[in-house]
């Protein structure tokens, strides 16, 4: 704890906002973010707080005379470990097991921590999943290896392109173009039987499945702004993937 002495203490409002920010960036549902923020606020003594969460920003008002605060969320990934960690901190805070200061320190640690699994392990997992998906969707055993390789390459490429190009759409488009080309190359070489199954398996790690489902759930829960904007994001991603693969077909 001694190393943290020079860090200024967080106010209760900032603790709520930090918790909300981490959860929203990690892919939690909108209602869960609002719910957790209000629970934490309640535990910290702010009994009539309001939070308004959209996928791109959080507005939080403590209920007192203080001004409302806003946080802008620019980048969203899926990091379930962080969602679970913030959730358990909120539980402990509500149960009175930790105080505000400890909670703030723990939240800062979570915010700064990186992905628990290394990039290499993630690419391996994506590659193996792609191979399995090719078989699940009706491909033959011959399609396993091509899907494994092009899926792994695709996932590595999307991570790399996200770092190089700041436009998400373009990174996804380029990646699916690459997947289409690699898959076609395998068929051309005589490895693999069905081009469709190989491509479907390989693009699965990129498909916005979580976004689509979260969008519909947000809409059903009455979070109309969040639902529509998540839906738009999912549609854009699906379009990028479809257009990238389709571009390969038009040139062949």
């Amino acid at each position, binding site marked *: 704890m001694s190393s943290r002495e020079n860090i200024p203490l967080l106010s209760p409002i900032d603790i709520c906002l930090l918790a909300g920010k981490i959860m929203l960036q990690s892919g939690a549902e909108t209602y*869960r973010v*609002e*719910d957790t923020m209000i629970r934490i606020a309640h535990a910290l003594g702010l009994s009539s707080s309001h939070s308004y969460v959209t996928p791109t920003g959080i507005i939080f008002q403590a209920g007192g005379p203080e001004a409302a605060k806003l946080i802008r969320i620019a980048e969203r990934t899926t990091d379930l470990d962080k969602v*679970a960690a913030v959730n358990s901190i909120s539980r402990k805070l509500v149960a009175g097991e930790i105080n505000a200061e400890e909670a703030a320190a723990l939240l800062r640690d979570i915010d700064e921590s990186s992905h628990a699994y290394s990039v290499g392990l993630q690419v391996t997992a994506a590659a*193996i999943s792609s191979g399995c998906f090719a078989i699940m969707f009706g491909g033959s055993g011959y399609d396993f290896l091509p899907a494994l390789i092009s899926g792994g390459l695709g996932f590595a490429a999307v991570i790399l392109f996200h770092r190089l190009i700041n436009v998400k759409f373009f990174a996804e488009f380029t990646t699916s173009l690459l997947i289409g080309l690699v898959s076609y190359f395998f068929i051309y070489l005589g490895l693999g039987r069905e081009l*469709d199954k190989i491509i479907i398996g390989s693009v699965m790690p990129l*498909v916005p*499945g*979580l976004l*689509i489902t979260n969008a519909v759930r947000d809409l059903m829960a009455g979070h109309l702004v969040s639902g529509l904007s998540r839906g738009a994001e999912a549609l854009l991603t699906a379009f990028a993937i479809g257009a990238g693969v389709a571009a390969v077909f038009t040139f062949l």
Partner: protein
Amino acid sequence: MYMIWQLITSFIASAGFGIIFNAPKRTLFQCGLGGMLGWVIYLVLDPYYDTVISTVAATFVVGVISQVSARIYRMPVIVFSVAGIIPLVPGGLAYDAMRKFVENDYNTAVQLAAQAFLISGSIAIGLVVSEVLNQLLIRKRKPHRG
């Protein structure tokens, strides 16, 4: 033999997605199990019933497994449900629809796109129904918003 391969591949694929989504290490097995059971139910029902019905049934099971695991491990439901629904997500259909659009076969494309939309809706319905059931069964807790 076909079914055994489907079981193995769906388990590995769902657990792999758990790693991609950075699920905590001790939940990876449950992620794989949820995905496997959901996929098997989908495969068993699909030849007899409409795809939408089989998807709702499969996601409902994934949802129930996720609710139970969430309660046991004291973690958010989303940690378990996300990887479990991945095999059911209409990624292949969305891809087929997009491909037909590019090939100027608009009739088939719109049909496939509508089907993909319906299936994503039915995934959400399956999850919501399991959540509502959970809330109805456990009344002693304060009802949850959303």
